[in-house]
């Protein structure tokens, strides 16, 4: 038994190593455009990990992760826009009637500040939201509705405060990051690797969390919150923490997204992207970290590819795909794998049985 266990473990390690190698070597075999796309998908995979942590492991469905993603994105976008404006006020403020740079924009001149803000603002917001909801035992569908409300508040605010946020257009038109031209192939490759490293770090962190005692409590909360409470744990504390970590990961993903895509707009915080993020996790297979990563990469790859091939009909094809997965693969891609393995094993056990007891 121990032998098969360690063999399986070796296989898993080899698998991860191959996947990581394929990911890190991507600049060698992908064109600049494809690399840019993959970088974006890897950024999405980071949000998916965070979502999986709270939905797959803790049983909290958030349809508001676009907000945390967007806040990270805006933090980075503000920095990049200031860099591109070269000490002057960003163009959209000028045409929206501002005469001086608002005070809250100034610290974003520093990349370090912007980076920290991109992690902490979503994290703290998630913590506050988690505090007021979980402590008051608001959960299930009520919590989900609240997260949707958060999305509407955030987009309305961003669109309404055009002079400070760029309005519907969002913030775009960047030139430099850390002194380097953001559009040069070298910088892009570097940013790709940065994204890949962050994904690995996020993955390892999440894996560590779900394997730890903390992760066990999360799963216990998912399966029976009241029991956990009776045992003496405070579920709210665990839920808040998981939600905040998830928010931080979304913020990180948003920052990386902006670096690769070159624009952030309120539409990225909207209801549709927030739901899409959950769909990636659902399709990849919730409750398995690798499923979340796979879901984000596969679904976005499919979206890019199908929309290029069938520009008139791709939305229908994607819709059909979702329905097929939800109806026939409730456990997502990883769930399918599990089912196949299960069937294979039970068949072979059956056969063995038949051999041992041949029909008379």
């Amino acid at each position, binding site marked *: 038994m121990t032998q*098969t*266990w360690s063999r*399986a*473990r070796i*296989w*898993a390690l080899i*698998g*991860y190593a*191959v*996947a990581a190698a*394929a*990911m890190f070597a991507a600049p*060698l*075999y*992908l*064109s*600049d*455009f*494809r690399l*840019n*796309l*993959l970088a*974006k998908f890897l950024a999405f995979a980071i949000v998916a990990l965070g979502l999986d942590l709270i939905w797959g492991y803790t049983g909290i469905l958030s349809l508001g992760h676009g907000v945390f993603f967007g806040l990270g994105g805006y933090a980075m976008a503000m920095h990049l826009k200031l860099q591109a404006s070269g000490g002057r006020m960003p*163009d959209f403020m000028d*045409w*929206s*009637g501002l005469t001086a740079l608002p005070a809250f924009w100034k610290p974003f001149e520093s990349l370090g500040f912007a980076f920290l803000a991109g992690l902490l603002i979503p994290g703290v917001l998630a913590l506050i939201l988690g505090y007021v909801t979980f402590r008051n035992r608001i959960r299930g569908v009520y919590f989900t509705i609240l997260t949707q409300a958060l999305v509407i508040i955030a987009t309305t605010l961003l*669109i309404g405060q055009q002079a400070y946020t760029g*309005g*519907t*257009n*969002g913030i*775009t*038109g*960047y030139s430099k990051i850390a002194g380097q031209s953001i*559009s040069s192939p070298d910088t892009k490759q570097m940013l790709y690797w940065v994204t890949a490293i962050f994904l690995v770090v996020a993955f390892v962190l999440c894996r560590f969390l779900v394997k730890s005692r903390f992760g066990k409590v999360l799963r216990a909360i998912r399966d029976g919150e009241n029991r956990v409470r009776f045992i003496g744990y405070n579920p709210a504390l665990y839920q808040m923490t998981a939600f905040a970590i998830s928010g931080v990961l979304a913020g990180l993903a948003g920052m990386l997204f902006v670096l690769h895509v*070159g*624009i952030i*707009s309120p*539409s*990225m915080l909207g209801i549709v992207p927030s739901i899409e993020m959950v769909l990636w996790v659902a399709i990849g297979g919730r409750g*398995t970290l*690798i*499923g979340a*990563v796979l879901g984000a*990469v*596969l679904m976005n*790859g499919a979206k*890019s590819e199908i*929309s*290029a091939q069938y*520009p*008139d009909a*791709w*939305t229908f094809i994607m819709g059909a795909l979702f329905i097929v997965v939800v109806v026939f693969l409730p456990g997502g*891609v*990883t769930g399918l*794998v599990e089912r196949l*393995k299960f069937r294979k*094993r039970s068949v072979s056990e059956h056969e063995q049985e038949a051999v041992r007891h041949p029909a008379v």
Partner: protein
Amino acid sequence: MKKKKMSIHRTALLMLVLAVGLAACGTSKDEPASTTEGGTTAATGGDTIKVGILHSLSGTMSISEVSVKDAEMMAIEEINAKGGVLGKQIEPVIEDGASDWPTFAEKARKLLSENKVATVFGGWTSASRKAMLPVFEELNGLLWYPVQYEGLESSPNIFYTGATTNQQIVPAVTWLLENRGKKFYLLGSDYVFPRTANKIIKEQLKAEGGELVGEEYTPLGHTDYSTIITKIKEAKPDVVFNTLNGDSNVAFFKQLKDAGITSKDLTTLSVSVAEEEIRGIGADVLTGHLAAWNYYETTDTPQNKTFVENYKKKYGNDRVTADPIEAGYDAVYLWAAAVEKAGSTDVAKVKEAAKGLEWDAPEGKVKIDGATQHLYKTVRIGEVQSGGMFKELWNSGEPVKPDPYLKGYTWAATLSVGN
């Protein structure tokens, strides 16, 4: 138990590797280097010249943008039927911007770097243009943008075939002040075009003796205008200058009519309501209301007669032509003419050849202004008739020189960024 779990991991990882491979398929690093100094060569490599068409074919903007795509496709077919450009057929590569600005940026990048198109025709909202702009500047591509917009922009990589403010809004305000009254009420959707437009209008009102009696913004997609109509009644303006977009127009005009206010009681002038939108709102509700554009389906030129005839023959008699549709059609012809003149699809050469290029468009003569890459366009104020078509009340007589930064207006000094 453990074993089962591990195999999940193994297979899942295999799929991850596959996924990465999938992203790689169809591409390789040894594709011919696409760009020589300053221009695309691959676009002209074969027997065809590839061009990109990038509009929203899904999502909220598709209702407007699909018609522009149709007009561009028609222009391409017409040019191909006459032998194409530089003796080659034009091959359109269609992409869906999906009413989502980052998608516009992604697809623009794809068209330029993967399909190596010679040029792209696309966009509708300012947000989509602003999202694509850095991509075109970075990859030195060429974008033809067909919709009237808020000005204050001139990218070296974009040709603007719709009106800028001094070819639509500014002359409309002047005309209204002279013909309909001094008291203005500004109503718009809450995004960059209405806000910028109204900023300009407010300066102009101050300078030309108008009076601002109210200013309201509603979120995109807003449909309840009863409060605003009450406010309008109280403010008693002579003119409502309407920069609402999309569905909001349906709600606003229907509720205005229900409130018993007709075009006889109150002048409204819209800058985002064209023939296509009238079809959606219903001509009965809009009869007598005004709009400012550069082109109407009823514009009386021989070119327009053929254009409208062909468009209806191709896409159905119930379809209408409108300003952005015509501007999209113009864009394809102007690009083709510039390429013929340049003898190449090289971006720098096409831009050079495009300077001062003239063309008899359905709207009348248009000319490319080399300095701003905008068009000289005739301004037209029209009144909606019961059949849903416009009757022209006034036009500028000749094409107006584009002035995106309003440098020719002293009152606009505080607005312009100075580029």
